[in-house]
């Protein structure tokens, strides 16, 4: 959505802050997330975000819609898996503090049944790689991933785990954890706030729900 596509009414809405008099008070009304938070961003970044991806997920062999026998069980199992992804406690750097904060009272991932941090990879479903992965840690990370039983997922939390981040081109740091294990969800940020991690976990939940 570019500037030229917007109707004058929309443009006025988008630039409401700029057109307001300096002593004018906004109308008293409850906060509307779409209008007050998303639409109040600067127009330039709004234009750069692009439209939502509307591509339908490709059905797998077992998730076939006309397959009566397997579809229901598959959906049930996917539902169960998506509702209890137990993370492996794998904190490597400052992201781990945010990961801990996500399971504490304020953000409470227990609401989604995701607070069960397992210390043994044998009982974990999701590996949240929270922090900088050094070349020395990389083989251990790969081994822990391989020790996890199927089905398993990986969340790359933070810029370091996603792409090397701050340690870009460093001699001792892995340039993104996706070079050694398949990553399902990337959570950007340095470090990402607990809300961002919860968003990532919920995105992973959607992905599992679709049979991923």
């Amino acid at each position, binding site marked *: 959505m570019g500037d030229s596509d917007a109707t004058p009414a929309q443009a006025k809405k988008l630039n409401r802050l700029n057109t307001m008099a300096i002593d004018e008070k906004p109308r008293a009304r409850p906060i509307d997330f779409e209008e007050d938070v998303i639409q109040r961003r600067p127009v330039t970044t709004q234009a750069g975000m692009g439209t939502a991806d509307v591509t339908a997920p490709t059905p797998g062999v077992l998730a076939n819609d006309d397959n009566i026998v397997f579809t229901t069980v598959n959906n049930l199992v996917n539902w169960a898996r998506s*509702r209890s992804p137990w993370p492996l406690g794998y904190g490597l750097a400052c992201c781990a503090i945010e990961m801990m904060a996500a399971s504490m009272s304020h953000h409470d991932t227990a609401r989604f049944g995701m607070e069960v941090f*397992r210390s043994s990879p044998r009982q974990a479903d999701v590996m949240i790689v929270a922090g900088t992965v050094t070349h020395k840690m990389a083989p251990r990370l790969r081994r822990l991933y391989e020790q996890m039983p*199927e089905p398993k997922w990986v969340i790359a939390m933070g810029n370091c785990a996603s792409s090397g981040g701050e340690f870009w081109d460093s001699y001792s740091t892995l340039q993104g954890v996706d070079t050694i294990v398949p990553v399902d969800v990337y959570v950007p940020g340095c470090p990402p706030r607990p809300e961002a991690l919860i968003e990532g976990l919920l995105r992973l939940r959607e992905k599992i729900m679709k049979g991923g």
Partner: protein
Amino acid sequence: MPVGPFGIDPLIWAPLRLIIAVGLALFLVLNGALLQIYLERKIQAIIQDRLGPYHVGPFGLLQTFADALKLISKEDVRAAATDGWFFVAAPALVFCPMLASWVVLPFAQDIVGTNLNIGLLYLTTLGSMTVLGIVIAGWASNNKYALMGGLRSAGQLISYEIPQILALVSVVLVVGSLSMIDITRSQAGPLVNVLILPFPFLIYFIAALAETNRTPFDLPEAESELVAGWLTEYSGMRWGTMLALSEYGNVTVVCAIVTTLWFGGWQGPGVDAIPLLGVLWFTLKVYAFILIMMWIRATLPRLRIDQLMSFCWKGLIPAALVNILVVATLALAFPTTKIPIAIASWVLVVLFVAGIPFVQRRRLRVLRARARASAAPAVRAVS
């Protein structure tokens, strides 16, 4: 024609009773595990000022169903270096004694698997068999953390078995029977055993926390020291059977023993008119103790292994020995009345509870002196 309980022919009643008892046991254990895990997470959440599971189903009630379904559909990993047969058999060896315990636990009048006249002996024997499965699990996993967890568990369970059994024996001395039915029958009316023998109850409950590997005695699964203790190598439903079913089943068994021995079992208002009401009273009492165990878990931190052992050998076992000496002497001296035993037992409770701060203060003084001795001279001068 002979008439059995509920006016039913005894020939029909015998198998019917067995079916009801087995059904209730399976219901309490299998569904109880799901319910207890949900309760555990919810109660801990409330105590820690969180919300706990609430997005999965109404009030998060389907959370443990999702967990169980996920565990069933999970890959079953068995590492190449494990000891095959033992690795597979260990979950069953942990699970079976727990399930077999339900044979003698009476849910209500006449609703019991069998009225064994050595019921309490049977229960303590099965209780000590759990450790066998745990040690086998630790050994067969071929993993150093699993082995350490298993051996720790063996040490802990064998140590805490002693005060546990000594506490049970004092109840047997007063009641005069090992049968669970007779023990429950002896507590008709408001005078339940806990009013007569509160001290053995205290000892048993503390020892039972250690026996079921509950916090503050969950050393065998201490995450910060041993990855997941004896459960390290287990995945999927094998882990689910071991931890969820067996551990929570053991908690239920222990709470059922406490209920039967000290709190009158199925006895409660209205059981004389409607005998089946006993099942409700029994379950409610059991769950009250399960909730207390969860409360303790959310409150207390974990002990160190030396603290665990010294508490058992220097605290609980002498206390249990004193208790059994006092109860046996008074039972011999006053064969007709239980009042002296009750008075002595309450005095022991007060001494035990009031003595803890003194011991604690002395311990703290020693620790402070040690810390001061090891501090740098400049720090020592100002402290």
